[in-house]
């Protein structure tokens, strides 16, 4: 039996050994540079978060292995912005994480967040701390819009960079797609009350009206509620050609299930929030069948440019990456490249210098050369459209097999 005193001694000696160990390692090894990755790792969007985290991790692992920046080792520190009470991302938690990041001097840049609602909470804090983040997934345009600079970058300099384009293109381009390619004349619009969903639906609505699509109505879903039959019955009575949903999976999956029962013949479309494996695992077929979704990046997982990445990703993590795993990997490459240039020019590596170097990035990545405009948005503005169609010959929960690439959405 271990007495309390013996246990205390054990713990103390273990701590001493551990401390010696780390001290020894630090002397011998490279200087560690931390990169904070903030995602919704436990929420309703946990699976897409995992793919993004793995994509980013792979970039830094490869850099460490090939000693891309001599004298420096990258360390990925993951932060979860989902909370149990929200069941998905929680802006309050995201703000807390951002505060932790800026107070850590070893942390030279960040990747994320996944969710625009988190991004809105994090941006002002990151701005004050002059810490750059590159989001591979959050697409709400307000955060980088100079109109809202006071709010999201109070310190002046852009700190919110993206390796995806924004909903200012994602929503409208889908409206164009519905009007031009599917000849939609009337639409009903829903959103999920979140920053991303509302912004997406707003942007879609503006362009749809310009395209001559008649908007029959607009309503808002409570993502924690279970029952959307009332609003869907109302939509049924209006006979729209299409339903557009701006939002993420928590409400989206339930919407897909119930919409299949009530309005099976209406065209259904959503943004990258619906580009989620949950459409296959939780909504499933036949409910998911026919949904059109967009992503705010070029479609790359099938392309030859991503071949090596996909192979390495599958080998390491045992599942296929999605396109935002690639944009996350690209975000990692941008950060590594920025540090590399600073080191080559014998400049200090800190929050401000890395931010500056990212701003001037011309980094070759999987999706092409990543460069940012004066607000931090990526210069390439491709929006890709997918349709979910059941392919019974392949696993039904495999996104790569069941989300079929339709093409690039027409830009405005």
């Amino acid at each position, binding site marked *: 039996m271990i007495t309390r005193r013996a246990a205390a001694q054990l713990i103390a000696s273990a701590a001493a050994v551990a401390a010696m160990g780390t001290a020894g390692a630090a002397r011998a090894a490279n200087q560690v540079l931390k990169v904070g990755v903030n995602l919704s790792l436990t929420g309703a969007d946990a699976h897409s978060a995992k793919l993004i985290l793995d994509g980013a991790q792979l970039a830094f692992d490869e850099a460490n292995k090939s000693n891309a920046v001599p004298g420096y080792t990258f360390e990925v520190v993951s932060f979860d912005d989902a909370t*149990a009470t929200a069941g998905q991302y929680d802006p309050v938690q995201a703000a807390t994480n951002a505060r932790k990041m800026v107070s850590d001097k070893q942390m030279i840049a960040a990747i994320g967040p996944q969710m625009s609602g988190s991004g809105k909470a994090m941006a002002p804090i990151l701005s004050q701390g002059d810490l750059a983040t590159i989001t591979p997934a959050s697409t709400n345009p307000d955060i980088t819009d100079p109109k809202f600079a006071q709010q999201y970058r109070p310190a002046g300099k852009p700190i919110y960079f993206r390796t995806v384009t924004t909903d200012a293109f994602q929503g409208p381009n889908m409206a164009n797609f519905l009007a031009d390619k599917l000849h939609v004349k009337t639409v009903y619009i829903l959103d999920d009350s979140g920053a991303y969903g509302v912004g997406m639906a707003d942007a879609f609505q503006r362009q749809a009206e310009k395209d001559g699509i008649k908007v029959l109505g607009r*309503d808002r879903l409570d993502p924690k509620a279970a029952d959307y039959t009332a609003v869907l019955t109302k939509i049924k009575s209006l006979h729209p050609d299409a339903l557009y949903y701006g939002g993420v999976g928590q409400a989206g999956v339930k919407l897909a299930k119930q919409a299949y029962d009530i309005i099976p013949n209406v065209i259904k479309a959503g943004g990258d929030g619906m580009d989620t494996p949950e459409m296959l695992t939780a909504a499933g077929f036949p409910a998911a069948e026919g949904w059109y979704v967009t992503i705010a990046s070029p479609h790359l997982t099938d392309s030859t440019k991503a071949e090596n990445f996909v192979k390495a990703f599958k080998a390491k993590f045992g599942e296929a990456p999605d396109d935002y795993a690639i944009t996350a990997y690209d975000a990692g490459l941008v950060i590594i490249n920025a540090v590399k240039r600073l080191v080559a020019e014998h400049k200090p590596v800190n929050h401000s210098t890395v931010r500056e170097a990212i701003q001037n990035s011309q980094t070759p990545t999987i999706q092409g050369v990543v460069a940012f405009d004066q607000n931090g948005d990526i210069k390439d503005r491709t929006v890709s459209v997918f349709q979910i169609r059941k392919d019974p010959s392949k696993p039904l929960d495999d996104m790569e097999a069941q989300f079929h690439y339709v093409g690039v959405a027409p830009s405005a």
Partner: protein
Amino acid sequence: MTFSDLLLQQAINGLSLGAMYALLALGFTLVYGILELINFAHFNVFMIGSFIAMGTLQSFGLSGQDVILTGLPLVGVLVAAFAATMLGSGVLGMAIERLSLRPLRNVSGPAAMITTIGVSYILFNIVLLTLGADSKNFPNPLPPMRWHLGGAVVELRQLLIWAVAVVLMGGLWLFVQRSKLGKAMRATAQDPEAARMMGVEVDRVILTAFFLGSALAGAGGMIFGLYYNFTSFIIGFTAGLRAFTAAVLGGIGNVPGAMIGGILIGLIESYGGQFIAASWADVIIFSILVAVLVFRPSGLLGRLAPTKS
């Protein structure tokens, strides 16, 4: 769809929702009637009920919506799943009472209520941490049968919800009115001290109330899964809060009141979604709650038992 079809369809939607709220509201009311305790753990007993139901259905080899059963196998599977779910949830309810509430029986003030909030969060987080945060695809063996009433549609699963709700609520009503234990429950609700002096085992009555309320919540959880074809660790809060509102609306502590309150909340939610906006559902529901509490503090039907001093 004509306007009258639309009204009918929303009534069908609302009644289905309402039946679920009513089953859940009964649990609040049973416990409140006896202990004057608002049991917030009830929210997540409902949630866990849906997971027990999912596990039971999966143990019959059902997954997703691929396997459709008909006839006797369907009835057998459903009866077995309802029985397992109600038993499991009922036992969970009893365990909550025995482990976390009985030790506080004689502590005055809000200690017991706060404890139920704590238990609720414990259950919630256990499910979150062990089963994950993603929505689960709930197995549904019901054939996709539907009938047209003019322009409105009634589905088999809606009929099932109503049937189950009517049977369970009828059974509860008979139990409370006719059985010896039911009479003991009513006696305890009226005056626990007097009931004890007359030889009623109050602890047993309380355990029974927790068992029954939780079993009904479990049945509600299973209905939820069959109706929406999904479940998730988070479903307890919204449904639980609305069911709690239903119980208060009908008159908390009052069994028929909980049923009527549940149906009303369901109808308010669906007609509100039609004529105002779905996003205003909570505003409408809770405004009605406030109005009822202001003008009829004891709810629509009031409390049957006199308030304890």
